[in-house]
Every structure is written in structure tokens, then in C-alpha cells.
């Protein structure tokens, strides 16, 4: 366990390095940051100077080494657009994104899991079929469309929910939460639903597929023979056996929506890191992008590590290291 974590830590460091490197290669193609940093009247010499100052003219290896060196000292640089330290920018926006992502995932699981179990149990019932078809709306309609439609109906026409932003936020130390105010809750509903709809479909379908498999297992039959309650058979025995792939996807999806809930954040003007990233792409704000990518890499590394650990928690057979794995 200890050595496992140690090994992962080392691997993670390599992952971060690789991400930084690839990101650097990428930035050559992202566009010219300087054009966005100066007015139209600025002379070419000044532009060139600025480029020089930002180190954009250095050879990639030099830029890379400088960058890594600075990061190791905890200096992530200043945003080209906002002139502020990138790490504080991201840190102040991370809570919003995390709250939204977790809400979305919770929404998706609270609905998706029972729906998945139900459709797995009764694959032929009309309700299952309805679930299966209706849920497809979540994956076949573009997020943007869903978001705008929600805004139109609940925000503009009915006027029930705010159409943008996070509502009132409460500062709890370094964490700012919108979940302590009514307006905060009102604000998170639509974006979380928009984000969660896709996850819901995904989780539901995945669980159904796995449930169909698991429900035929002998231990389920035996559990029935023992007269266990259906709920405990379906949600305890069967569901747990579907968890390994479901957890994997849930983890990846959580990572993806934290990292790339960009469209939702943009549609609802949700002040999270995705919005920041979107702006950074359109203005070629390299420091934000690189730090952001490192953050995202860290998020995925952590989520995947947690998921890997959860495998062991869920499935005792995976803990066995005696079996000589593979060839």
C-alpha cells in the first residue's frame, strides 16, 4: 500500500512533467497572445519586444525548463490578460467549479443509479423503455441547447430561476460556497441539471448493462433463495457488483466535468475555472492554460488514484497479490 502510493506519487510527477511538455508544444499553435495584450496602435517593434519579454521567442526547451523551474518554486506566472497571479485566479474559481461538478454528479447518481437498477431489473417493461429513450435526450442534444432552453423556460419565461451566475456566495476561509444561500441553490439547479443530464444517461445505461450481467449470477439466485429483501439484493448485492466499471466512468466523468464543463459554465456564466479556461483559449493566455492543464492533470491523477483505491475497497479479489498476474 505504502509503496503503491509512493510509486503513484512518482508516476504522477512524471505525468505532470509530460503534461507540461505537451502543453508547451501545444501553445505554439494556440495563437498569438500578444495581439490580445496590446492595442491596435502598438507598433510591431513593441509587440516583438513584448514577445521577447514573455519569453515566447526562446526555444521551446528553454521555455520549458524555465517554466518547470518556476513552478517548482511555486510561481505559476501572471495571466497575460488579467495581470494577476494565475494560481490565485484559479484558486478563487475552483470552489465554484467543484460545487457545480459535485452537484451534477450527485444529481446524476441519485437519479441515474435507481433508474439503471430498475432498467436492469425489468429490461422489458415500458417504464424502462421510456427511461432508456428519454435519457437519450441527455446525450443527443447539445449541452448548449439544453442550457439555453432551460434558461428560456425557467429563467426568462417563468422567471423562477436566475439565468446566470452563482447567486450569493459565503466565504468560508479560502472556500467560497454558494450552497449556504437560497439564491445560491436557485442558481446551481439549472447548470447542475444541464451538466448532470449527460452523466445521468451514462451512469444509468452503464448500470443497466452491468446489472443485466450480474443479475444472472448464481449468488444473486442464492441471495433470492435466502429470501433477502429485494432492495438488499438489487442495491446491495447486484449493484455493488456493477460498481467497478461504473466507478471508473463516474470518476472520469467527474474529472471531465470539473475540467471541461466549459460549455455549461459559459452558458450559465458560472464563475468557475472552465469559464476562465475558455477565455484563456480565446485570448491565448498561456500561463492560465498551462497552470490550468496542470491542475486538471492533478485532478485526473487524484481521481484516478481514488478510483483505483476504491477498486480495492469494493472488490476484495483485486487485493490478492499472490495470484501470478498475467504471463
Amino acid at each position, binding site marked *: 500500500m505504502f509503496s503503491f502510493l509512493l510509486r503513484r506519487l512518482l508516476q504522477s510527477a512524471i505525468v505532470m512533467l509530460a503534461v507540461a511538455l505537451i502543453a508547451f508544444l501545444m501553445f505554439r499553435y494556440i495563437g498569438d497572445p500578444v495581439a490580445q495584450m496590446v492595442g491596435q496602435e502598438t507598433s510591431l517593434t513593441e509587440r516583438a519586444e513584448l514577445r521577447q519579454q514573455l519569453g515566447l521567442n526562446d526555444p521551446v526547451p528553454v521555455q520549458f525548463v524555465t517554466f518547470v523551474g518556476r513552478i517548482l518554486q511555486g510561481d505559476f506566472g501572471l495571466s497575460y490578460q488579467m495581470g494577476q497571479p494565475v494560481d490565485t485566479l484559479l484558486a478563487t474559481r475552483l470552489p465554484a467549479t467543484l460545487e457545480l461538478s459535485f452537484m451534477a454528479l450527485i444529481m446524476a447518481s441519485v437519479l441515474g443509479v435507481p433508474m439503471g437498477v430498475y432498467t436492469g431489473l425489468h429490461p422489458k417493461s415500458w417504464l424502462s423503455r421510456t427511461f432508456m429513450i428519454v435519457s437519450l435526450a441527455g446525450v443527443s442534444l447539445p449541452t448548449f441547447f439544453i442550457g439555453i432552453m432551460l434558461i428560456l423556460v425557467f429563467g426568462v419565461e417563468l422567471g423562477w430561476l436566475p439565468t446566470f451566475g452563482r447567486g450569493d456566495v459565503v466565504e468560508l476561509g479560502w472556500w467560497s460556497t454558494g450552497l449556504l444561500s437560497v439564491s445560491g441553490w436557485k442558481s446551481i439547479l439549472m447548470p447542475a441539471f444541464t451538466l448532470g443530464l449527460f452523466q445521468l444517461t451514462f451512469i444509468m445505461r452503464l448500470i443497466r448493462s452491468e446489472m443485466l450481467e450480474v443479475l444472472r449470477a448464481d449468488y444473486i439466485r442464492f441471495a433470492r433463495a435466502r429470501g433477502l429483501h429485494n432492495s438488499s439484493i438489487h442495491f446491495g448485492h447486484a449493484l455493488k457488483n456493477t460498481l467497478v466499471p461504473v466507478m471508473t466512468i463516474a470518476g472520469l466523468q467527474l474529472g471531465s466535468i470539473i475540467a471541461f464543463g466549459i460549455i455549461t459554465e459559459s452558458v450559465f456564466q458560472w464563475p468557475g475555472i472552465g469559464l476562465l479556461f475558455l477565455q484563456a483559449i480565446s485570448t491565448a493566455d498561456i500561463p492560465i492554460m498551462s497552470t490550468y492543464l496542470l491542475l486538471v492533470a492533478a485532478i485526473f491523477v487524484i481521481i484516478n488514484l481514488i478510483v483505483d483505491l476504491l477498486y480495492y475497497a469494493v472488490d*476484495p479479489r483485486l487485493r490478492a497479490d*499472490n495470484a501470478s498476474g498475467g504471463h
Partner: protein
Amino acid sequence: MQETDAKPPLLAIKGLKVEYPGRLKTFVAVEDVALQIRHGEILGLVGESGAGKSTIGSAIMGLLDAPGRIAEGAIELDGERIDNLGAEAMRRIRGKRISMIFQDPLTSLNPLYTIGRQLTETIRTHRSVSADQARRDAIALLEKVGISDAEHRMDQYPHQFSGGMRQRVVIALVLCTDPDLIIADEPTTALDVSVQAQILDLIKRLAAERNAGVLLVTHDMGVIAETATRVAVMYRGRVVETGETQQIIHAPTHAYTKSLIGAVPRADVKLERFPRVDFIEGSGKPAPQFDVRSHWLGQGGSATSPERTVRSTPLVEMNDLGMRFITHRSVFPRRRRYFDAVKDFTLDVKNGEVLGLVGESGSGKSTVARVLAGLYRESAGSINFDGKALGGQDGRREFGRQIQMIFQDPYSSLNPRMRVDAIIAEPIEHYGLAPDRRERETIVANLLDLVGLGQDAGRKFPHEFSGGQRQRISIARALATRPRFLICDEPTSALDVSIQAQILNLLKDLQEWLGLTMLFISHDLPVVRQMCDRIAVMRHGKLCEVAETEALFSNPQHGYTKELLRLMPRL
């Protein structure tokens, strides 16, 4: 017909017909079956493998595998029909009033929950007791079924248990709710005789003291003789004969029963070959006549002919073999706990010999087999095969085909998504043992015939087979590699004596004519006596005694061996 009785029987099955509708044709598994079990009675159900015994059990429970369904007939519990009850009503009967031990104990336990959790959960579903109480009850139950160190074992997962131990857990699970009717489908196949005796005793006591009825499905006529009050004999989906145990065993009337009884392996003398069941009804293909020397199994390959085999040289040498499992993980090495499943195990298997491995359930037999097969990496000692070390990848690759294994659990060792013919064809294909596809198909068909499944079986998927049939598929697959050294972990535990005889004879022929070497793990002492040249006895992960078969049976040295022989059920 029970109108005369004041009290209806505990269970009455009337005119039962169960079918598995397929797309092309509907398979009738059970037809026109009528059975009765009274309170306190143990009804033995014997019969051909695939005759429909397990199907009857499942039908009573209302748990027929989809798409199976009851086409005709009625099942009554205490005079009330239960075959047409709703799902929730049936759930309330299950576990509480009727319990069933499925034939496949190894897959009956949820792999993700500890044994303790599964036990307490069942107890608390049916009785309102505190969690602590349930746990204490569970431990007591485990001890009752002969699991030592129960307190500690409670927190282990099914995969950490041996086959027999899992079977006992399943039995404990069934007993913990005090049901009125117990359906026990081959409950003791994986148990050594001493534990088996203990379990059977438990069941008998239950029937006697609690007035519970028992439907006991088994192939072991010895068990029937010692336990059952009455016996029903099944053949091809029908009950051909019912009667008092003594009458069935000593004066069977139906031709099938007669030949079945006649084929039971004898524990007292060693015979050349196993007697065969010669009753075949209707057109039925006669059991194929088989000549090893001209057969595909006998050609080429690495199986050496007996002439060339020097019986005295060891083929497999195990030196101080040890296998330890981690049972408690911890960051700190000091806090880790291990379990030595096999320890200081030194044993040779000679060229061309059949070495029997018997011993207490959970003593490490399967572990030895798995280490030999390369599924576990030994944690101590070494293995030599044909004089060469078997450690590492190279050794394994070199001897890959020569070492084969038949698993104790036929259920999980077959890929559920492959058709049976593909499963069996696989090793042939892999080693290029057949010149072309056509040939391969012929060989597969032939192998299926050899294990008594018939060629049509090839088109089906494993789940469409009965326990015994699946076991035969595994055997066919193992044979298809034309192995030199075959590890058989309880190869015939789920087979009726007739099929058992057919297969054991086949193995014997292979041994005799081709010098096939075998490690034969079994609890069935009569079979072991017939099959093996030498016998090793294991207990607690260690070797107790190794001796020539006859010497061991006539003059056991070790106390445990003596105990085993004493408890051997007899007709």
C-alpha cells in the same frame, strides 16, 4: 391422492413439467414428476446427470433460470399452492420456509461481501435480532458446519475459502433460518468424509428435531444409504422409481436403478475398471467404444507411450513447497498477517502414475494443484517438471501443454460467452493438434461423445448445462490438449456413477496406454482406491502420509488417515 391423509404433506409436487423454451425448440427438462415429502422426512433424489434434479429444486423455489418455466403441474407447500404465488409472497417463503443449497456452492456466495456479512444479513432478514447477536449466531453456525477459527474467518471473503469451506458456508447460510423444507442439491460434493458425516448428521438432526423435510439430491449412493428415508430415482426428466431407501438399494425394480446401484464403485476391493451403467433407454446411442491406441487422443503429442516410460522416475518433484496468503494487509510489515495454506510440501509424482491427493477440506489440496498449474506463484520451495525447474515464464511456456488441470468448480471455469464446441476446440487449435478445421470439428464432436454429452451439446452455451454436464465439458477441454500431466481437482464430484465410470475408465485407459500422469484430488475414497496407484494424505497444509493405495487402505499409519477410512460411507 392425499385426500385420505388428515395432514397434507409438507411438499407435494404434482404432474410437474418444466421446460426451457429455446428459439428453435423447447427443451423439456422435467416431465410428469410427482413427489411428496412429509415433515421430518429426508427424500433422496438420485439419477443421471442432467436428468432434471436441480431443475426440480429450482422449480420449487420459483427460481428457474430464465427462460425456464413450469409448463404444467402444481407445487404445494403444506397444502397450499406456491408455484403461482406473486413475487413478494414467494420471497417471504424463500429462506424462511424453504431453503435451498444450490449445486454450485462456489459461485453461490457474493464475492464482494465477507462471509460474516452474508450470514448476518440472512439471519437479520428473517429474525429480528441485534447485529451482535446475529454475528454470534453466525459464528456458532460456522462452527457447527466445521469451520475452525470461525471468529476470524467471518471477516474473510469467499475467494479466500477452499471449495469445501464455501460449501459449508452455503449450508450454514441455509440452516441459519430454520426452514421447514431444505432442498439440498449435492450439498457435500466438496467435503471430505469426516466433514460430510458431520453435515449429514446436522441435516438428519434437523429433520428429526425440527420436523423439517429435506430433499437431498446426490450422486453418492453411500450418502443416500446413510441419510435418506425414501429415495426417488430420476432418468431423463422423469421419476422412474420411488421407494424406501433399503428397498431401492437392495431391491431396485426399475432397470435403470438396478444398473445404477450395480455401478457404484466399491470401497472394499480394487477393480481393474469401473463397472458401467448399461441401461440405456430407447434408441440412445450406446456409450462409445473407445480404443486409445487408434484414437486421436493417443496419437502424437507429448504423451509418451508406456513402453518408453520408466515408471520409477519422477515427472513432477515438489520440494519444500510453500504457499502463503496475506489475510490481513497493513502498511506496516509487522502488522500483516499471513496464512500458510501449504507448507513444507515435498512430494513426487512418478511418470505414468496416478497419485491420489486426499485430505481434510481446506487442507490445501487445491492450492497445491493451482501452484502446480502455475496459477499461484509458490512462495517457497521449488517444482521440477521432467527434471527441469518449473519456475518462471520459460518453464511454464515450455511445459504449457503438458500440464493441464480440471478445476474443482466447473461453473466458473467455462467462458460464459463461448459455445461449448469453441471452448473444447480451443486447445486443439492453439497447439495445432488437428490438421484442419474439419478435422478439429470431428475431434471436438468425438470428445463430447466421449464424456457422454453428445455432439449437439457443442452448439450450446455453458449456462444451458447441468452441473455434471459442465464438469464434463471441463474434462473434455483438459483432454483436448493431449496432456502429459493432468491435475484433476474433484473431477467427478458432480457426476452420477454412470458417467463417472465412463470418464474414470477413459482416464484409466489414457494412463495405462499413454502413460498419462495424474494428480487426482478427491474426497470420494472408493473412487480414489480404484483410480490411484499411490495416495497422499494432507491436513492443515502439510503432508501426513504417502503410501501405495492398497497399503494405505489396508494399513493406514497416520491417525487422520485412519479416521478418514473409518468414516467412509458405505452402501
